[in-house]
């Protein structure tokens, strides 16, 4: 029963997304970066947000996309503050030797 229901829902979505001021998920995908960078013109931003309201898949996708970005930044950024205390002595010696050459 689940599969046919999904198909009907998809057909409804497919039709709905063709209405004026609506976009498909595929078109939504093209706007994601500009939306997050706050580069979407007001009109396109309204259309983007309207799609978000009616599409569960894109809402969840965007939430996970943003969570993934946060995880990436936090994981690699803090690495710098978590630097090992041991200084690579060979590299320091090589740099100083080059400086004194």
């Amino acid at each position, binding site marked *: 029963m689940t599969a046919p229901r999904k198909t009907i829902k998809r057909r409804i979505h497919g039709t709905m997304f063709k209405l004026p001021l609506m976009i498909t998920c595929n078109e939504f995908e093209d706007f*994601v970066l500009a939306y997050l960078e706050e580069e979407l013109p007001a009109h396109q931003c309204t259309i983007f947000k309207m799609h978000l309201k009616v599409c569960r898949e*894109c809402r969840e*996708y965007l939430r996970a*996309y943003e*969570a993934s*970005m946060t995880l990436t930044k936090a994981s*690699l950024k803090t*690495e710098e503050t978590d*630097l090992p205390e041991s200084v690579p002595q060979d*590299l320091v010696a090589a740099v100083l030797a080059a400086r004194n050459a």
Partner: protein
Amino acid sequence: MNACLPEPQPPREETPVSESGEVELLRAGNAAVTADFVRTNVTWMLAVARRILRDEGHAEDAVQNAFVKIFGNLDSFEGRSGLKTWMHRILVNEALTVFRRNRTQKDESIDEWLPVFDDNGCRIEAPWANFETPEQLLQRTQTKAHVAAQIDKLPDAYRVVLVLRDIEEMTTGEVANALELSEANVKVRLHRARAALKKLLEPLIRGQEL
């Protein structure tokens, strides 16, 4: 003959040297300040170079080259940006030079991790019954290493754009210049890299890993 051990000296009070004072001493070739400067900065520089190059030897080369440039260009450092910001820019440029020199032309495809749509243009996305927030995930010690490992799975052409934009906080224009790409191409690669990474991190965010 005085056989007594010398009186223990109180620890020498370090007088903080201002950034401009440090730059002056570096320009003058002060050996102690130079050695201290290298020791203080080498670890973060190596970490940045490793993130871009993923190879210890190449990262060390980039750091060495960067120090040569830094010492060679101290006279042109005008203090408009902080010293570390200036050094960071030089280091990233050197790392990218090493990256371009050692890069293989064959880039693996990223398609398998990109979003999927049906014939109607509708997204195919499994329902998110469980969603762990980044705050929850970052409380676990293994998370950062796991995320770093997933980033390393991305093909270089995408990974480097992601690292430069999202981690090193360069602008799209700066990344485009550094990699000799158009800004539109940088944006496409950045979005694809983020979308692929979302897919790779999905089991973690869904609470199915770690």
